[in-house]
């Protein structure tokens, strides 16, 4: 298994190398032909050609491309993501504080979608075609069809803005000026854990709904599959309770697949934060990324993409290794 894990980590490193190369090609090579050069952007619109040439020399832009990539890579390894064209400060400074907010958002949402999807999905698999199963599936297919960039303003409107007008779900039943949930803003966990959670409830729910839908369907299918297997029948025949069969037998077999899906979905969730963070004004990497897109602030966009990709690759790798450890069928087969 150690060797298998080693191969997997090597694969992950290759993937990270590929994404840095792609991002570099895109924003440091192709972008030069479609817009202003990095030197021009940093020196400013009023700079003289001599000043631009000096900046280009300092940035190493007159070196051959392969050396520029190596310099870029060298900087990345040391945590140097370059200099923002717009904010005039190192990109790494912008990113580090943003990462905390984004991690709070994504991890909290993951807890919510698992907490809902596991019981609902397992119930659906246990009692197919029951009322609860049909309702769960109907809600799931609806949840899958709602794009997060629409959900975000609607939830913010319904539970954040409307109560301040004295209305809940359109009905004038609240005293005017009620503040059920904050519309926008973010409080760091270190400052006040209660305020942190209070400010994140709506964003968490917004981000979690689509994933809840996917996970309900996934867990329902897996549970139904496992319950049709001979071993669960044997367990039941031995007198194990439904709860024990679900948790000890089915759960043990479903958990590895769910873990793998979770690893892949961290990447998807990092896309979702772009839309959620901007609507709820959470200063995370999605917020930073979107304002960078509007300002064509390439170093920040590059950094956001690379950081997101690295997080996704790490999540996938950790989950795959956890999968090997959880699932003896993979663990003990050397060429799996």
């Amino acid at each position, binding site marked *: 298994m150690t060797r298998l894990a080693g191969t997997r980590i090597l694969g992950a490193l290759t993937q990270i190398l590929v994404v840095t190369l792609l991002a570099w090609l895109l924003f440091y090579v192709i972008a030069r032909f479609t817009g202003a050069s990095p030197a021009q952007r940093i020196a400013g619109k009023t700079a003289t050609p001599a000043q631009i040439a000096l900046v280009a020399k300092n940035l190493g832009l007159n070196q051959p491309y392969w050396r520029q990539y190596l310099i870029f890579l060298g900087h990345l390894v040391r945590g140097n993501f370059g200099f923002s064209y717009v904010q005039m400060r190192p990109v790494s400074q912008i990113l580090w504080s943003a990462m905390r907010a984004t991690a709070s958002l994504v991890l909290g949402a993951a807890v919510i979608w698992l907490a809902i999807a596991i019981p609902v999905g397992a119930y659906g698999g246990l009692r197919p075609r029951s009322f609860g199963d049909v309702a769960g599936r109907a809600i799931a297919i609806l949840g899958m069809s709602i794009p997060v960039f629409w959900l975000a303003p609607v939830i913010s*409107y319904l539970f954040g803005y409307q109560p301040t007008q004295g209305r809940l779900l359109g009905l004038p039943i609240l005293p005017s000026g009620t503040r059920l949930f904050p519309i926008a803003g973010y409080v760091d966990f270190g400052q006040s854990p209660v305020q942190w959670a209070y400010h994140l409830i709506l964003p968490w729910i917004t981000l979690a709904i689509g994933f809840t839908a996917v996970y309900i369907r996934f867990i329902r299918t897996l549970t139904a599959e496992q319950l049709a297997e001979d071993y669960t029948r044997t367990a039941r025949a031995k007198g194990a309770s439904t709860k024990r069969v679900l948790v000890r037998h089915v759960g043990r077999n479903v958990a590895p697949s769910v873990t793998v899906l979770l690893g892949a979905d961290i*990447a998807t969730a990092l896309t979702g934060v772009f*839309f959620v963070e901007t609507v709820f004004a959470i200063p995370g990497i999605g917020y930073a990324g979107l304002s960078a897109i509007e300002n064509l602030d390439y170093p920040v966009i590059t950094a956001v993409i690379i950081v997101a990709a690295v997080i996704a690759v790490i999540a996938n790798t950790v989950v795959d290794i956890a999968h090997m450890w959880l699932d003896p069928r993979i663990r003990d087969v050397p060429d799996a």
Partner: protein
Amino acid sequence: MTIDNRVDLGVSQSVRPAGLRATALRRLRRDPASIFAACLLLLLTFAALIGAPLAAKLTGHSPIQQYPDALYRDGEPIGIMSRLLNAAGTAQDPHGSLFILGADQLGRDQFVRVLYGARISLLVATSATALALVIGVSLGLLAGYLGGWVDAIVSRMTETAMAFPNVLLAVGLAVVIGPGLLNVVIIIALFTWYYPARIVRSTTAATTKMTFVAAARAVGARPRRLLTVHLLPQVWGPLLVYATSIIAANIIFEAGLSYLGVGVPPPTPSWGQMLSDAVTSGMYQTNISLALVPGLALVVTMLAFNLLGDGIRDALDPKGRR
């Protein structure tokens, strides 16, 4: 698609049970959810192709025409079922033209725009899916049939592509090459071809080992004939299921790109752009219909594709009942 008789003779029961397609169609026709979804999609196509110009003709509003009289003095657009304002800009003019779903923040007709938006959504999603299928099916067939280093390269490419937050890379690419209809189609195809490629690769790799392929080869079929006549027909079933969900995903993809301002450029109306206009201007808080109209259009379309995708999957499931 015409099926070569020789294929049917050679196929073993496990690959193509007699009349699978007929069974699937019968199951689909009996599934109320699939029928409902198919009707919705038909209606949507109709609305996009004929409804949009018809609405523009009947209301006399083009999708990009801005009406200053559709905005109150404070810049607030007129609401659902309102008429243009009188000269003073204070009240609706009973003789003014009707805005069925109100106006947007620039005084454009939301009803006409949402209908024209359907054109962009469907056009981009279907053509991007078609392009992704062409790339994915070709690479998947080659990888599954040839194996060896071709397979290794294609497999590593799909694995790597699937490990990344693709929408982010797509947005990055769109930022650099700029917005535009064709650019959006190419970008979406570039970031979705590996789903069909993986499915086609695994199906082809399994089918290549079957007796009927060996038989065809023994009779003297060339690789080209093997690929197009014998292997290609086997992948349509699994692909059909995924194509529906890929179109749905691509509709969201296009709307997301437009929402972020890197999709189809304004003033061409697209649902993502309309949503983003309502949200970034902050106007959805006082006039939620600005966000509801394009959003519901998106949700209904997605729901139809997802329901139909589920229906096709169940209908093609060999273990399915009925």
